[in-house]
């Protein structure tokens, strides 16, 4: 995996809320920098406000890729608790399954206690008695969060237990229902929805499951208020967000920008592009390719990127240089993603494998226009027919690759490839590509 360094703070875009000061796993320093975590009942600057209402007013949207309004999600959990009369759970998703993303890892190295503050505040607001944080097995993120939780436990500041679990490093393990399944029953496999996790998640109880960065923003909103949060960013989805920028840029890494920042500005903050860039990958390996010329001045929001077919996802932006064959990269990613299928649903298990094969033939210039048509036909019938959105994402990634690089497809059909790059660009975790089986075993525990 390409090394992603944290970027130096940029004064040009104003305050850095999450990556301003690198506090690290240090509770004392955290309190000194961010003040004590405000608890329910205690007002913020004299204004008594229910945290859920505050989050709704702030307009915070999920930073794990869904961009779903967090206040609405919390409200739904509260409603489900009233309806089911079961104690809710809080789950912090610090898994960061996207290979091209490292924003959660960076956030946890900078301000792990902000993440945990947010989880504690949310738990108090919805009446949860326990918090579970989940990160990849054997990763630095897990270690940091475990240490941070231990610090809080010995200081006795929370009054709620925070357990930190390590989950298997499979791509779909970080999917919402899979994570709730793992926390409740120990198996990180997606389950059928509905019911959604907010009404039936961990052990069929209402569960507030959100990304680590989202919880960090909750912690800041509780301190500074909804109007402060709305002070920067796009009004439709305000605040700041973390973007993992990689590829042909001068300083690849994680940067914090207001929502609605253009791709051009984001690239500039990451050291600018190095050489000619033809297209970007937005959102991750379940996201989409966009033409650089179409997308460069689009704002980084769901609606903002839509005209070019881009998706912000979990804040992933890869600048793909012109010397790289996008079809080769797409084939590599598709093959890996096909192997990451849980194998529970036929269209995903068999469909993605056939898509990967078609892309590989196209990438290696051993295909025909009939096979490309078959590939496109398959891409058309796979989405929406799996239990989770994994196949939909892979299909979008592949389909947009073919559209954006139509001329490259034509070239490959006549046996030519315009790419000259000899090394892989998009990072793929090392290890054997798994072959999905219908009865997944121990690797999912």
């Amino acid at each position, binding site marked *: 995996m390409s090394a992603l360094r944290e970027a130096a703070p940029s004064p040009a875009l104003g305050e850095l809320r999450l990556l301003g000061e690198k506090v690290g796993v240090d509770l004392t320093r955290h309190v000194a920098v961010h003040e004590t975590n405000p608890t329910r009942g205690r007002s913020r600057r004299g204004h008594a406000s229910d945290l859920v209402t505050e989050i709704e007013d702030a307009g915070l949207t999920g930073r794990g890729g869904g961009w779903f309004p967090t206040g609405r999600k919390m409200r739904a959990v509260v409603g489900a608790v009233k309806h089911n009369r079961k104690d809710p759970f809080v789950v912090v998703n610090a898994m960061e399954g996207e290979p091209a993303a490292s924003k959660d890892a960076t956030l946890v190295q900078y301000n792990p206690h902000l993440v945990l503050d947010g989880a504690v505040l949310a738990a108090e607001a919805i009446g949860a008695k326990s918090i579970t944080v989940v990160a990849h097995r054997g990763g630095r993120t897990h270690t940091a969060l475990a240490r941070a939780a231990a610090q809080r436990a010995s200081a006795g500041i929370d009054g709620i237990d925070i357990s930190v679990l390590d989950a298997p490093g499979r791509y779909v393990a970080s999917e919402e229902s899979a994570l709730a399944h793992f926390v409740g029953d120990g198996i990180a496999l997606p389950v059928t929805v509905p019911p959604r996790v907010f009404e039936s998640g961990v052990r069929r109880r209402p569960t507030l499951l959100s990304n680590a960065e989202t919880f960090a923003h909750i912690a800041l909103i509780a301190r500074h208020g909804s109007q402060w949060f709305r002070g920067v960013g796009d009004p439709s989805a305000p605040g700041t967000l973390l973007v993992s920028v990689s590829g042909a840029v001068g300083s690849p890494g994680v940067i914090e920008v207001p929502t609605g920042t253009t791709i051009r500005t984001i690239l500039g903050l990451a050291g600018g592009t190095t050489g000619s860039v033809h297209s970007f990958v937005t959102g991750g390996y379940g996201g989409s390719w966009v033409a650089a010329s179409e997308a460069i001045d689009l704002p980084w929001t769901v609606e903002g990127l839509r005209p070019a077919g881009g998706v912000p996802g979990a804040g992933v932006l890869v600048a793909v240089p012109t010397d790289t064959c996008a079809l080769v990269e797409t084939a590599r990613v598709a093959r890996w993603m096909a192997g990451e299928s849980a194998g529970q649903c*036929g269209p995903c298990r*068999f469909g993605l494998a056939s898509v990967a094969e078609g892309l590989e033939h196209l990438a290696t210039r051993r295909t025909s226009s009939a096979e490309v048509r078959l590939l496109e036909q398959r891409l058309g019938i796979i989405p929406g027919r799996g239990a989770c959105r994994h196949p939909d994402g892979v299909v979008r990634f592949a389909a947009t690759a073919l559209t954006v690089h139509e001329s490259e497809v034509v070239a490959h059909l006549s046996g030519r490839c315009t790419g000259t790059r000899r090394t892989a660009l998009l990072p793929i975790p090392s290890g054997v590509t798994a072959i999905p*089986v*219908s009865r997944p075993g121990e690797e999912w525990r």
Partner: protein
Amino acid sequence: MSVFWLATRATGEIALVLLTIVTVLGIATTKGWAHERWPESVVTLVHRNVSLLSVVFLVVHIATTVIDGYVPISWVDVFIPGQTSYQTLWVGLGTVALDLLIAVIITSLLRHRMPQRAWKLIHWTAYALWASAIVHSLGVGTDKTLTRLVAITMVTTVALAFVARFFTPDRSDDPGVTLVQTQARR
């Protein structure tokens, strides 16, 4: 020899054959064994229909036994095992088979309205009910040659299907389409 006594032995053997067919078709259903002329939908529907047919023959088998009165079996003994003084064990096994069959059929009719795990658990007792019926026929039957012949054939058939069930791939691992695809696609 009364007509009832003949009828009870005949319908008993037929019910046993039908139950064997049901068991094999049940295995075929869950494994997705099918053929152009016997697609999966037919296999599962015949499995269901033959099970109901076997109930019909069972009802006649039981009714003729009780009515005939040659052996002292009352209606209570039909449903509660171990009550008869006559061949307590062998008749009792028949009762057990009937009780299990009633449970399997009722739960299958209510399949969509009950937890799947409970349905599955009860359905698995189908093997036990079939085995009880086989042993019942051997113990109770007076024409030993016939009952042994039928029993051996039935046991061999189910044993083969049982082994095939566990030593062949599941339908979910087979990414091919059923041979009836052309009909389905039209």
